[in-house]
């Protein structure tokens, strides 16, 4: 039985994404919001909206108890958690089930197993999926961490046992860095997932970060939908993703896909999920973790497979069997996504809050935009700085890149700093265009870029004249012209009493 009403326990672009899937399926979307989000886009597009608390997420979007209460009050049959917040919280998933509601995601038993990354690694070994050397359990304290790090050998990676998304993750190159890094990783893990547990893995040099999308129904059917290349990261946070990986081939794709399916079967996994791998320079792949949720970068898979993953999530959660066989899943072309963050790339990616003044988004052939904001929206400091995602599809990777290039040129966001200007530079970098990327690419690019800019930084007279003309116009406009985006009054020619004659 398809749901009539779904509560979306999230905000931003993913809440908007789920609302649209609901609209297509004729389901009424209900949302929750914090005091900071009354005017947010996800509230505006919903049918019903419930205030659940003050701005800090621990008092609002992480309050599973209140969210379940709202779902009951609103008469929603299911809860979609999006990503982040409660999405990978098995306890919450269990509480949802206990309340007689459907959690749109994996069953809580599988989440519990896979959510503890250390258990997931053990399970992968059982399913004969290769894993990165490291601990099977969270570190107890600094001394324990030091011992393990010595054993697997530096560099090592600290990771939050309960989460993903780069939060609580730190690369540690030497014993001296460990104490501080461990403290920060634990604090971040606590803040993000309400659980300070951290574990240690051997850091693989120049790895590629690859993930395999899967869908699984309740009846034991599992398919994979191809990989995403997510190597473009900054501080372990994904920045630009593509599908398929430019260097991959059908054989390796099948091997990785089948490994992902094996693991999902071993865990009794249901609904949509992602199996993450590191791939080293010899094309060996190692299981990293399972993301038991829809992911930020799911659109690139949607664009090359034609499958709407959020719709499938809802159908599978409603108990429908998987309508796709492995042979139905055909990749067409290539897709790439840029995550537009409210961060200042000229200022060490410092988060940037404030009002979005102008928001000109690109459109046209092959371009998709998934946005959670609008012009006039105040970006708050309380939440993740992801504003929106630009996605470009092309018949080939080359065309997808070319389309993203003009799409980035056409994008304008003012009022806050964003990563758009940086991406324009990346899309002119020969290494990136050639697909020569690994998880260290971006920090190398940022270093070289600075030098490249300094050496080519001669400001010509002509450029100076043009910049000055733009700045002159900017100041002139301020001082006398009415803003062109302000609509002339449609009411001012009327009195305060006006009469409307309806044709109805």
């Amino acid at each position: 039985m398809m749901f009539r009403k779904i509560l979306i326990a999230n905000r931003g672009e993913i809440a908007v994404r789920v609302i649209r899937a609901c609209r297509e399926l004729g389901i009424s979307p209900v949302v929750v919001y914090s005091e900071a989000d009354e005017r947010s886009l996800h509230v505006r597009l919903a049918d019903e909206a419930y205030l659940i608390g003050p701005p800090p997420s621990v008092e609002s979007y992480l309050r599973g108890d209140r969210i379940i209460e709202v779902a009951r009050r609103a008469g929603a049959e299911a809860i979609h958690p999006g990503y982040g917040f409660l999405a990978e919280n098995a306890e919450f998933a269990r509480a949802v089930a206990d309340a007689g509601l459907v959690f749109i995601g994996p069953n809580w038993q599988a989440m519990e197993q896979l959510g503890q990354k250390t258990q997931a690694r053990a399970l992968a070994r059982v399913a004969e999926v290769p894993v990165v050397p490291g601990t099977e359990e969270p570190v107890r304290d600094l001394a324990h961490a030091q011992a393990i790090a010595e054993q697997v050998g530096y560099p090592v990676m600290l990771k939050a046992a309960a989460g993903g998304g780069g939060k609580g993750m730190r690369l540690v190159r030497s014993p001296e860095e460990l104490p501080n890094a461990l403290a920060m990783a634990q604090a971040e893990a606590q803040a993000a997932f309400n659980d300070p547990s951290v574990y240690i893995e051997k850091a693989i040099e120049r790895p590629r970060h690859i993930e395999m999308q899967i869908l699984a129904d309740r009846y034991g059917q599992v398919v994979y939908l191809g990989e995403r290349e997510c190597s473009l990261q900054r501080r372990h946070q994904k920045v630009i993703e593509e599908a398929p990986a430019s260097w991959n081939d059908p054989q390796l794709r099948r091997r990785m896909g089948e490994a992902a399916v094996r693991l999902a079967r071993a865990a009794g996994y249901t609904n949509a999920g992602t199996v993450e791998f590191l791939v080293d320079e010899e094309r060996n792949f190692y299981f990293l973790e399972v993301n038991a949720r829809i992911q930020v970068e799911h659109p690139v898979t949607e664009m090359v497979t034609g499958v709407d993953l959020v719709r499938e999530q809802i159908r599978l959660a409603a108990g429908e069997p998987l309508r796709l066989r492995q042979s139905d899943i055909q990749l067409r072309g290539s897709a790439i996504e840029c995550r537009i963050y409210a961060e200042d790339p000229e200022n060490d990616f410092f988060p940037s809050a404030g009002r979005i003044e102008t928001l000109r988004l690109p459109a046209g052939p092959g371009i998709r935009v998934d946005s959670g904001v609008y012009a006039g929206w105040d970006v708050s400091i309380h939440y993740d700085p992801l504003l929106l995602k630009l996605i470009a599809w092309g018949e080939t990777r080359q065309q997808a890149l070319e389309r993203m290039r003009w799409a980035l040129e056409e994008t304008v966001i003012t009022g806050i700093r964003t990563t758009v200007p940086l991406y324009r530079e990346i899309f002119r970098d020969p290494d990136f265009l050639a697909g020569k990327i690994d998880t260290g690419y971006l920090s190398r690019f940022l270093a070289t870029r600075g030098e490249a800019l300094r050496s080519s930084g001669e400001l010509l007279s002509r450029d100076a004249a043009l910049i000055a003309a733009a700045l002159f116009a900017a100041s002139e406009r301020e001082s006398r012209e009415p803003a062109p985006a302000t609509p002339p009054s449609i009411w001012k020619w009327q009195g305060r009493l006006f009469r409307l004659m309806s044709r109805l």
Partner: protein
Amino acid sequence: MRIELESEAAQHLVEIEERDGGLIAQVDGRSYEVKVFTPEPGVYTLLFGQQVIEARVEGNAQAGSVTVTVREHAWHLRVRDRRHRRRASEMGAEGRVALTARMPGKVVRLLAEVGSPVQAGQGILVLEAMKMQNEVRAPKSGRLAEVHVREGQTVGAGELLAVIE
């Protein structure tokens, strides 16, 4: 109107005025005629002869940082008003550098003690904003002369955190 542009390689003083519906920009002894219109806020279409050049002014001047893009080239500009510059130069004169909060956030941890020597790049404190912990680092080596915040304290944008001398 007079606009000063400063890059590492050069400095330009542009004199700009309106004439016949267009702009005349005088720079380095040369004169450029440009027609400008503003189709959307932040977007400036420059007609320079037959060439169409879209200039974008992106970012947040309040936070002191804008990017002016002319064609494919992005110029990252620091915008400062006179008050800020005066303070910066005062401190520069004394060899003192102020660490200020670039956005509102919460001080979660102090990493160095007042009076202790610090290396350029060393973490001074950890500021949490948007769920991310960011180390505020020393821009130069010296001594941590002043710390104006406590752990757990919430700070506003531009607030003075510490001073290194």
